[in-house]
């Protein structure tokens, strides 16, 4: 199980050919209190870079672009009732959706945990 991060503050944890996707703690902190999350439909497919989700916070609505392409196999249904889960546990229980990867090579170019840590340190 390895977790990769993007410069758009998303993470994906890979197990075999499957990934679990969410936004990072840094992202939820920047967004403020999250009030609504739109996740993709189960069974839908997207390419890397497509808009897959929308996060609405008290400050703004932000699109989430797929950091990896594939078919959506599951969504986190708890987010509909309780979007605050992402504020509380962005990188665990606040996951967005699970995806069957269409091309594992797309993971190249994403950062590992240390790389991401160094990346966000340059932002402040």
């Amino acid at each position, binding site marked *: 199980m390895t977790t990769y991060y993007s410069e758009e503050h998303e993470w994906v944890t890979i197990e075999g050919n499957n990934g679990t996707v969410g936004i990072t703690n840094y992202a939820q902190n*920047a967004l403020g*209190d999250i*009030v*609504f999350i739109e996740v993709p439909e189960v069974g839908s497919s997207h390419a890397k870079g497509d808009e897959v989700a929308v996060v*609405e916070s*008290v*400050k*703004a*609505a*932000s699109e989430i672009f797929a950091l990896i392409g594939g078919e959506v196999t599951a969504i986190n249904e708890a987010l509909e009732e309780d*979007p*605050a889960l992402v504020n509380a546990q962005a990188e665990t229980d606040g996951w967005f959706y699970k995806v069957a990867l269409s091309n594992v090579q797309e993971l190249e170019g994403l950062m590992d945990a240390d790389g991401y840590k160094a990346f966000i340190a340059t932002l402040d």
Partner: protein
Amino acid sequence: MLNKQGRQTDIATASRLSAGATTTHSGNKGLEQDELLIYEIGDTQRCGVDLEEVGEFEDRLGGITRDNEIGLAGLSEPETMRHYTRLSRKNYAIDMGLYPLGSCTMKHNPRLNEKVARLPGLSDIHPLQPISTVQGALEVMDMLAHWLKTLTGMPAVAMSPKAGAHGELCGLMAIRSALDKRGENRSIVLAPESAHGTNPATATLCGYKVKSIPATEDGRVDLVALKAALGPDVAAIMLTNPNTCGLFERDVIEIADAVHEAGGYFYCDGANFNAIVGKVRPGDLGVDAMHINLHKTFSTPHGGGGPGAGPVVLSEALAPFAPVPYVIHGEEGFELVEHIAEDSDSFGRMTAFHGQMGMNIRALAFMMSHGADGLARVAEDSVLNANYIMASLEDVMTVSYPGPCMHECLFDDRFLAGTGVATLDFAKAMIDEGYHPMTMYFPLVVQGAMLIEPTESESKQSLDQFIGSLRHLVAEAKAGNKDLFSGAPYFAPLRRLDETLAARKPVLRWRKSE
């Protein structure tokens, strides 16, 4: 301060605490009255008007007549008057003080506009009246169209769209029709990162995919990235000028040329026309379609959703696709074209009638009372006022992009770094100072954005007072007086409301508590 009888005159030092009472029996705070919902004031048993008893009548609803109570609240005339007067006193309004949200919400609406709009010949007419009886109203629309075409340097205008976003839709439908006529199936609309949210929404509604164009470090469209994104798939670019960062897109002509060369159209979001009216003609910049928010640039009253008016000026290429109805000069006076001729390219109709007539009248009153020179002065003064604020605050707050700016100036939250005060807290503290906060957290391209648009109608004295309040707040934040912000507002009728709860679990319908 004590008065001659030895009692406190100053609220800050006056205290009711001797009796242990921090609240009042009524919920009012002195002359600041608490206000209930109209349903909580009135009851369903009373009726404020004398209605005739309903006599025998024939049921023509096929037996679906209502058999339960509607439950409307009954209030007497004075109760009704008091309710709305008390509510209006809670409202912060442009008629009460400077409004840093600017024309997006409301700029000063000269009272002359109101006087003209209330003339019986203009206010007591109906769109279905015979044309011969409303020649004056049609002339008003025709004159307004003439002013709009002249000010923008564009050959045609569609008058019926009822708001800026409606105008965007009109413009993009014209573009779509023009492309259909050319037999081209282009699928992409380009919009800069800092675009108004309505731009991508409009493009999506018209069936396009939106591609975002990044900004350069000085807050303008990245020309290189734009040119790289252009191609045979691009239907149009939607560009606001001046943009939402309050900056003039200085490459606008090169942008227009590049888009045209690639076979696309240039839609200009005219929301910020206020800053350039009388100075720059969008037609000279290569614009193909642009909506004009009459309420923003020409001062018609609005706020909180309407009534707006968004006429769309169109280039030679797009004019044939304009929607009906429109006014023409006929043999016996003005006529309305209501139907699409068979050989016409018009894309159809967007509204039942002819747009927001009341707003059209007010806008024309504003134009004619200012004159062409006066309108140029509107642009100059709005830009001067924004730059005065920027120059007066740039030593203590952080300007996002170097000036000069246009009609609005953009700050971000870097000056608050390390103070523990967020943009939201800062805005709430402004309420204690007696100001409605400026636009916050927009545009999104800037962290913790604070966008100030003073408009042209503020005097130097009024601006100085506002600047003084902001400088005071910045000094307090930097001095570590965090409570002043985290607890704000202290002096408003209510303190910090739970915006998160309101968004997550909105109560959209009042129900009587049993």
